[in-house]
């Protein structure tokens, strides 16, 4: 069976290739072609033999089928407790099966695996916390996605997204020049309000190197201005790299391992070139996972760390508030019931729950912060993680997945949801659009900018 024009095993690595894929609206032809796509079983089995290490082998072997993971999975809960949504079943019936069959699986089975890997698991890793053996299905699904990508069984949007990283080293078609221009434009727009506001580009030896999400540059550039304002008011010595500024990785969602490496190496190269003391990434969860937590392994870094200390935006913000670099005007604190979305990627998976709670203490009037239940490392995925948000083919499943977060928010009674993660922010935005529960949502930056006490010497002349 043939390789398709759009759907094939070859990654997209030219701008023309991306445009061609984009011209296939909604991936209609792409998915038609996928039905004809041949499975290269030899390659699949060879890849498995080379990459399935002892941890994954053990996990697949020792699963006792106890079912403890069932209740930990929000997709199991919101899908009528369907046994087919039990994490252990989901991974055993896909990755487990491919391995048992030594890669000899057919096209239909691979398409089934694609649906399970992208529409029945958001790689939130919650099940791994509840498994008595510590088996993390999310990690195994991340791995399965890599196998599927290699064989061409990947959702259309993610093939494009991974291609964007290959071509632009960014998740969207934003060039390095676009990034610097947009940042400068934003600073220009706000410099009257914040005299002395600048965006220092490519400064060597700064205390902070700041990296962003390309979507901020493309659609929400106020976020860049807000980041600049907060660093400026805090008196930080910061910079942005003109190359290697994109922290996110749709390649990680897609399972495009080679593109993951290319992307993260571009950020590490910027760190090595500019030698900042620390790197701080924007309010994004998966970007942090990709660049700070998993990236070092993709890049083959022996110590498992990025070239310089790298922290999440909430860690910097908590530090700035705790040390008094940023001061909040108490009269401007949030005085309405407000809740907080814990992002799986840096709360559950990196333990930053204290940072976000510290921030809430500073910006919310005592008594108005209402925790979701459960919360912190036990919190549920927003419903759109792991790439789920953007995949048109699985929109229906994604909308069902939002129900858990909707109900958690409703239970708090809060009308304002702070979501310091792009993916969560998107999912919560979409859940309001789908279910209309009357909430507002926000990143932290715009909220904090509005309640700052600005030191006299930084105020505009009246």
């Amino acid at each position, binding site marked *: 069976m043939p390789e398709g024009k759009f759907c094939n095993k070859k990654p997209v690595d030219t701008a023309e290739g991306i445009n061609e894929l*984009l*011209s296939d*609206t*909604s991936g209609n032809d792409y998915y038609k072609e996928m039905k004809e796509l041949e499975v290269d079983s030899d390659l699949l089995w060879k890849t498995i033999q080379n990459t399935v290490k002892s941890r994954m082998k053990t996990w697949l072997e020792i699963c006792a089928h106890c079912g403890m993971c069932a209740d930990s999975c929000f997709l199991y809960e919101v899908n009528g407790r369907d046994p087919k949504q039990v994490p252990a079943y989901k991974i055993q019936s896909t990755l487990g099966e491919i391995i048992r069959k030594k890669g000899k699986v057919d096209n239909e089975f691979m398409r089934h695996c694609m649906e399970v890997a992208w529409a029945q698991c958001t790689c939130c890793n919650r099940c791994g916390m509840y498994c008595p053996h510590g088996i993390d299905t999310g990690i195994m699904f991340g791995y399965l996605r890599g196998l599927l990508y290699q064989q061409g069984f990947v959702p259309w*949007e993610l093939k*494009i*997204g991974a291609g964007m990283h290959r071509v632009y080293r960014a*998740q*969207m078609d934003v060039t390095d020049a676009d990034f610097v221009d947009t940042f400068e*434009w934003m600073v220009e*727009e706000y410099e*009257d*309000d914040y005299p002395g506001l600048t965006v220092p580009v490519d400064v060597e030896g700064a205390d902070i190197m700041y990296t962003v999400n390309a*979507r901020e540059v*493309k*659609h*929400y*550039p*106020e976020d860049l201005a807000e980041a600049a304002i907060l660093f400026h008011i805090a008196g930080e010595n910061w910079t942005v790299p003109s190359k290697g500024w994109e922290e996110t990785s*749709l390649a990680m969602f897609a399972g495009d391992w080679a593109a993951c490496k290319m992307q993260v190496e571009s950020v590490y190269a910027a760190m090595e070139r500019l030698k900042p003391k620390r790197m701080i990434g924007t309010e994004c969860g998966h970007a942090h996972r990709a660049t700070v937590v998993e990236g070092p392994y993709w890049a083959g870094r022996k110590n498992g760390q990025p070239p310089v200390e790298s922290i999440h935006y909430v860690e910097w913000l908590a530090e700035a508030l705790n040390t008094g670099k940023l001061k909040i005007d108490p009269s401007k604190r949030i005085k309405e019931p407000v809740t907080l979305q814990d992002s799986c990627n840096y709360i559950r998976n990196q333990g930053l729950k204290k940072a976000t709670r510290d921030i809430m203490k500073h910006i919310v009037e005592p008594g108005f912060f209402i925790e979701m239940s459960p919360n912190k490392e036990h919190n549920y995925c927003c419903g*759109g993680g792991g790439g789920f*948000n*953007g*995949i*048109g083919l699985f*929109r229906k499943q994604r909308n069902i997945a939002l129900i858990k977060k909707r109900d958690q928010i409703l239970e708090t009674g809060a009308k304002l949801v702070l979501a310091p993660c*792009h*993916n969560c922010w*998107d*999912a919560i*935005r*979409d859940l*309001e*659009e789908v279910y209309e529960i009357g909430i*507002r*949502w*926000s990143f932290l930056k*715009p909220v904090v900018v*509005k309640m700052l006490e600005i030191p006299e010497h930084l105020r*505009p002349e009246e």
Partner: protein
Amino acid sequence: MFKKILFATSATGASDHAARVAFNIAKSYQSHLNIFHVLGVPSRGYSQVVVDVKTKERVDVDEDYTAWVTEDIRTYYEKYLDESLNYTIDVAVGVPAREILRQAKILKPDLILLGGSTGDEGESVYKKSSLGSTLQKVAKSANCPVLFVNRPAASFWGGLSNIVFGTDFSKISDKAFDFAMKVAKTLDCELSVFHALDISALHAGKMLNQDEIEQQIRESLRKIRSRYEPRLKELKGYSMDVWEGIPFIEIVKYARDKQADLLIMAHHSRKISSEDIRLGGNVEQVIVRAGCPVISINK
């Protein structure tokens, strides 16, 4: 004067009155008119899906769709688009205020003309997550004068002969005055300089007696004379007045009284209010209420 005009429009009934003024100005002054439409907000994370602001449908934006929307706009404004008009149509995806400002950055127009918002604000796909309205953001950040036509009554425009300039004696008001002078001179108009003495906010809780009010009015008039009159003499006709009251109401009343064709004011609100437009600042209030087009200047 207006060589290049950027007309940002929803291409719906909400922008009809603004469109009438836009096409009128473009034709009267042989301007190049860029008709600019932001067709929707990006949705669904990194996906290609956009919620179309007109149809409210979720669509995949590709070249075909953009071409279709462009054609739709051409059809919508068909009656205005004759050979005498020098125009282009551009369509973009994104948050409207930001995309309008981005387009202005590229085009560097002499004037931005902002159409009305799309239909019912509560239902607008833009509304909920954006802080402040398109109007506020564009008025605050644009690098050129921004012209608003909010009420249908403001759009029955027969050319320019009477201009009202509202001042609060700020530095930016001086910039706005420079612009008002330029328009009045170039187009040979009369210019009325007006200041409203705010008796609501300045003295909350304290009722001024009429002697005090009139004393302040005299002072403000003196200020207008010393600040603006020497230059006003360059014009064929001018007047200067100070009224007391709630400023935005007084300005609207004054413009009506003068049968003004255009109102010019400075916009210097530092913070964009996240409140509803009805609670916004003076300029926003004037824009919403005026019976003639309003130009806001911020730098």
